[in-house]
């Protein structure tokens, strides 16, 4: 048995090393899941496993302000995703389907936010808000504006790559079969691009939900979930934070796996009917 495992590792050295790297990436998730069952009632300042309990999972909203911050993060995340996905998808269509003056400038402007450190983007937005006289009104709306800003580029990149890989013969075939432009768009183009739009939206939401550096500079007294965790880290982290972390991981995994299964089933179904 041991020699067989040894042989397999020898034959698949790169794969073994790759799996080791993958395992390394999962260490924190394992710790987060473990700590979500930690009873920290004895000492909140000690960040280590003390004893097992279901309490954190049964009362996830026990820490004051945590679920409120979660609601703020979800609202900002959903609104930012909606606006950035619409604006970004339109821009992706313009860049792939149209030749217009200023196209290369636009490509550069879309690339820049992805190549700028968050601290620079956050501080320049803060400088703008203060210069425009909104220094005293930082909060929900300024954070939302910032999140839409840095999500747009990622949406454009994701949708653009899907759109560029589209077989234009499908659209030509539709118009050969007397579909008008709107029919072609809604029956052929849009459904084909939709998976790209969906993954762009998922990416935008997770970027917005997870953002700390830009949010911290522009949020005033509004507290998002990452800001709650940051504040708690200075005092002693409530273990419920780990419940939220584990839930998010499971939810995201479910969405991704669900999407994969669905697209595979659809591909199979098509193969049968053809």
């Amino acid at each position: 048995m041991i020699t067989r495992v040894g042989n397999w590792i020898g034959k698949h050295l790169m794969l073994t090393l790759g799996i080791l790297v993958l395992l390394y990436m999962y260490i924190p998730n394992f710790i987060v899941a473990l700590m979500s069952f930690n009873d920290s009632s004895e000492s909140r300042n000690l960040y280590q496993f003390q004893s097992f309990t279901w309490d954190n999972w049964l009362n996830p909203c026990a820490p004051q302000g945590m679920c409120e911050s979660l609601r703020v993060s979800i609202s900002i995340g959903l609104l930012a995703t909606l606006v950035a996905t619409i604006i970004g998808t339109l821009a992706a269509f313009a860049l792939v389907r149209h030749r217009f003056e200023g196209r290369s400038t636009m490509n550069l402007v879309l690339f820049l936010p992805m190549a700028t450190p968050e601290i620079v983007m956050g501080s320049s937005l803060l400088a703008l808000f203060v210069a425009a006289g909104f220094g005293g009104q930082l909060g929900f709306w300024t954070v939302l504006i910032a999140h839409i800003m840095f999500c747009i580029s990622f949406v454009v990149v994701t949708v653009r790559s899907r759109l560029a890989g589209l077989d234009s013969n499908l659209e030509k075939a539709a118009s050969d079969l007397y579909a008008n432009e709107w029919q072609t768009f809604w029956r052929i183009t849009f459904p084909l691009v939709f998976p790209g739009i969906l993954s762009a939206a998922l990416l935008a939401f997770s970027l917005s939900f997870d953002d700390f550096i830009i949010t911290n500079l522009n949020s005033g007294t509004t507290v998002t979930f990452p800001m709650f965790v940051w504040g708690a880290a200075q005092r002693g982290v409530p273990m419920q934070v780990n419940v939220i972390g584990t839930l998010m991981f499971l939810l995201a995994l479910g969405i991704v796996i669900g999407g994969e299964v669905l697209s595979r089933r659809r591909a199979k179904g098509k193969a049968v009917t053809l």
Partner: protein
Amino acid sequence: MEALQRVFGKNAAYLLIGPAAIWLAVFFLFPMLSLLTTSLSDPATGSPINGYTLTWRVDNYVEALGEYWPYMMRSLLYAGIATLGCLVLGYVLAYAIAFKAGRWKTVMLVLVIAPFFTSFLVRTLSWKLILADNGFIVNTLQTLHILGEDGRLLATPFAVIMGLTYNFLPFMILPLYTSLEKIDPKLNEAAADLYASPWQRFTKVIWPLSLPGVVGGTLLTFIPATGDYINASLLGSPNTQMVGNKIQQLFTTAGDYPHASALSVILMVLIVAMVLFYVRRAGTEELL
């Protein structure tokens, strides 16, 4: 799309691109200008609530650089080492997925992205536990005499660099995978037929063809790592603070916007200069 084209003529493209262009102009490009003017304002006469007036005070830059250059150097050093670490770890995994995973390719790709849906801060905090003074890793290293009796990992540069490496690893893996995946395995076989050793096959075939991914991945890792201050705050000590820590403190606790802005501008200029130099050297200018 053609319907739009017919109604609005040539302007259809501008209607589609308009919202994104306006949003980025107003909330990305214009703020950069604000940052620049704030960095040249007199800190004594303005305030975060009332705003600042431009007085072309270049001294802000001299003072910011004079006082905080060690933080800047530390940021570049830590981010540089973390980027190298990411390159080694990321290359191994991306290579394994692209060439060795077979039908598990998609599953492994999903597994690369999945852990990062747990909040960045929550995951970084968990490293605090893993590297803790009485934790398993420190105890083992002490037993093996790799670490001294009262040696520690937490609050050292090692912890900060490790945190950066861990947090930005997917930004390295995905571009690397994209360019490795495009390589035709037949090229590798052809090199083997021509008696190239595995090492020669890697250095003469695989590595050169994966360069666009290497350049893209190192940029996507190095840039955010340089500006990061979360790892330095949670896993480091006052002696391991990076430039992001200082910028953040100057804005939020000290309320000294002009010096904070000057430091921000310096960071941006440094990064742009390094990126341009690096991309030229690597010969992949079409990437930009």
